[in-house]
């Protein structure tokens, strides 16, 4: 029980470009939160601020009740070495997989536990095989990324993040770079994780997935949270015009007939 992630008044600017303009968000343990919004609305940036791939310009982030960074003269300071433990507790999966091409699937998954957590080799091998099996790739332990399909590569990337046994998983448009016929296998993996109680924040354009998996849907618009609520509230009966416009733009999105 309890909240895994709390974000308060989060701002992020890149030079003159003000991308996040005061985000407040909480994620409870076991929740799957889906972020939707047009490109450029700040979804990915928000995700990258949560594991400090980007350093927020202002605002605070709490993970498991602990504030990240140190308060000093009204500014929050983030030291690189203090962010490393944060990243080991927060897994991230990217749009372009970013597997390490010089390593096999097993080595990719072992790398974090071995190099960062410094577990024994045997433990790491066991862990790698366990998580690869979990994403349905027991037959690909020794395959190099170049010999895997996009969907398989992305599942290896998911296993790589899971092998750190994180408390929170972040998924950044993980199906956007995939051929349409490969999207399903990755979404199924995500769905399984959600049903097992993994806490996750998912940025996606797959509204059908959002509808069936999310505990909470958050609609971002121009760096602010425009509307949030249950999938039903946001995707079926949005109260805001902007949300409705956004949903209408997703012509491929069909709700099950029974919902109407």
């Amino acid at each position, binding site marked *: 029980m309890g909240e895994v992630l709390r974000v308060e008044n989060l701002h992020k600017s890149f030079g003159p470009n003000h991308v996040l303009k005061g985000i407040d968000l909480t994620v409870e343990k076991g929740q799957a939160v889906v972020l939707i919004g047009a490109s450029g609305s700040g979804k990915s940036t928000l995700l990258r601020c949560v594991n400090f*791939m980007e350093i927020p310009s202002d605002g605070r982030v709490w993970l498991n009740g602990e504030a990240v960074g140190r308060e000093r003269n009204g500014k929050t300071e983030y030291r690189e070495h203090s962010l490393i433990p944060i990243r080991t507790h927060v897994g991230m999966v990217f749009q372009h997989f970013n597997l*390490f091409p010089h390593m096999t699937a097993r080595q990719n998954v072992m*790398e974090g536990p071995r*190099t960062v957590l410094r577990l024994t080799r045997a433990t790491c091998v066991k862990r790698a095989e366990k998580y690869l099996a979990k994403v349905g790739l027991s037959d690909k332990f020794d395959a190099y990324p170049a010999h895997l399909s996009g969907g398989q590569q992305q599942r290896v990337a998911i296993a790589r*993040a899971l092998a750190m046994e994180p408390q929170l998983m972040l998924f950044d448009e993980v199906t956007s770079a995939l051929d349409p016929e490969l999207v399903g296998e990755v979404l199924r993996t995500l769905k399984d994780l959600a049903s097992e109680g993994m806490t996750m924040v998912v940025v996606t354009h797959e509204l059908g997935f959002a509808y069936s998996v999310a505990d909470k849907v958050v609609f971002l618009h121009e760096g602010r949270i425009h509307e949030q609520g249950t999938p039903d509230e946001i995707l079926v009966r949005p109260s805001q015009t902007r949300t409705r416009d956004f949903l209408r733009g997703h012509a491929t999105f069909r709700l099950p007939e029974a919902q109407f």
Partner: protein
Amino acid sequence: MDRIWDFSSVFASRELLLVGLGNTVKLGVTCLVIGLTAGLFVGAARYSRNRLVNWPASAFVEVFRNTPALVQIMWFFFAFPIISPFNIDAFTAAALALSLNATAFCAEIYRGGIQSIERGQWDAAKAIGMSYSQQMRRIILPQAITRMVPAFMNRAVELMKMTSLASVIAFGELMHQGKAIATYNFNPIETFTVVALIFFVLIYPLALGVLRFEARLGRSQ
């Protein structure tokens, strides 16, 4: 053209040429090893975001890349001993000049190789909690070095050729020995033909290696 080629006088001086070959290899290998090692640090320094670190490294690289190696060798032999407390022999001067030259070029190869690795690789390594040095050691360098190998081999080829410049400060490498033999026996045509052949036999396998490696790299990607 009724010239008769007579290699017997060159053959008689083979001991001198062998000494020269030894010195050429010694100078070339010394400079390559130093260049490859120091180049990594200078390259990393150039890549650094700290201006106090990257500015001197950049200045160093630009100076050595944009002045002739011959001038560098002359400078280290004639000018450097005057402004420093050291007495320098020909080998040290040549080794110093060519090592620093190689360092500058290798630094650029390292930097270019590292920059050629996609941003996503850094992201992925960082996201599983790796420190900067772990990201570099485990993820970036192993990939970058494969891409750098042809460039390093080219550098080795260039460096082996540049060692002949050390003849101007009377370091007894192959070219200098050849000059001595030619002057003594009045046989420059034969002597320099042999010197050229020895250089070719020494360097061609390296050049061949570059081609082979590039072909292999091309196939694996």
